[in-house]
């Protein structure tokens, strides 16, 4: 996959870190401000997709990245499921039980298990969108060979 011109590459290098950090902020502050795992995960995936589109990538590295991202996706979904079913053991026997202390509302460390769910789902959504993108790119490279 070929990269784009020097101007696009330079602007992407400047913007990409900002987009990535904004995505992380949206994920980790999901229980305080509008946003959450889905929106932040899509932003993080957008940062990666922008980098690959602007700079290009070689076939072998693309394959490796796809393996890693699909593994991340499955691991994050399993982690969310384990966290949800750990509510069955702790406290009252309810799936999706919020067993951690609620904390002071408005602080970053509050809301019990809700921030952890947001982080896991953020990783999952980012990895899923990146996997779909990489699968399409690899398909095109396979065809042109």
């Amino acid at each position, binding site marked *: 996959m070929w990269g784009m011109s020097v101007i696009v590459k330079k602007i992407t290098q400047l913007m990409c870190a900002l987009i990535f950090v904004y995505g992380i902020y*949206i994920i980790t502050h*999901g*229980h*305080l*401000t*509008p*946003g*959450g795992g*889905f*929106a932040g995960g*899509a*932003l993080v*995936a*957008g940062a990666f*997709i922008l980098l690959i589109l602007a700079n290009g990538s070689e076939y072998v590295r693309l394959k490796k990245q*796809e393996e890693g991202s*699909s593994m991340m*996706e*499955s691991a994050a*979904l399993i982690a*969310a*499921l384990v966290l*949800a079913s750990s509510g069955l053991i702790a406290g009252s026997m309810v*799936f*999706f039980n*919020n067993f951690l*202390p*609620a*904390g*002071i*509302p*408005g602080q970053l460390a*509050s*809301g*019990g*298990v*809700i921030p952890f*769910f*947001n982080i896991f*789902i953020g990783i*999952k*959504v980012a*990895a*899923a*969108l990146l*996997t*779909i*993108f990489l*699968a*399409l790119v*690899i*398909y*095109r490279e*396979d*065809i042109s060979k």
Partner: protein
Amino acid sequence: MELMLAVILGFMIIAAIYAIHAKDLLSAIIAQGFVGYGLVICFLLLRAPDIALVQIVVETITLIFMVAVVLDSTRKELDVQVDRKQYRIAGLSVLFMLVLLFYFNRIIAPLDGFGEHSMRMAEAYAEGAGQTGAINLVAGVLWDFRGYDTLGEAVVLFAAAIGVVTIFRLTGKN
């Protein structure tokens, strides 16, 4: 505000009808993007920034995907020939829909009338959401009271990613 909402919704309906009937697939995708971004403005007018944020990001990424697919394949729509057999199938499906509508009507009869909301669940959410400790009540409802919903959404995305990876694999493992 409602007038503005109605105007935007009207434009969205026109764009959706155009997207179905357009002969050029690229212009169909652009019209479909108009529907998506119109939905963003609707969400903002209805004071739902959470969903507007998700909609704007997902809409942009899907538009990029679809434009890439159309530029790689063909821009012309296929000519579909309609023969007598398809009319029969269409008639049967309309009949099936009418039967479904009849039973749906009987199912929703005991519910509240049109325009009268049953606020029992909403009141429980509003009282209980503060106990989760999350200031963003939407996150509290999403991950505590309606966790099954959100888990289902996550699994749908997971299934979509697996499907794409499986379909677009030329060199199999065997």
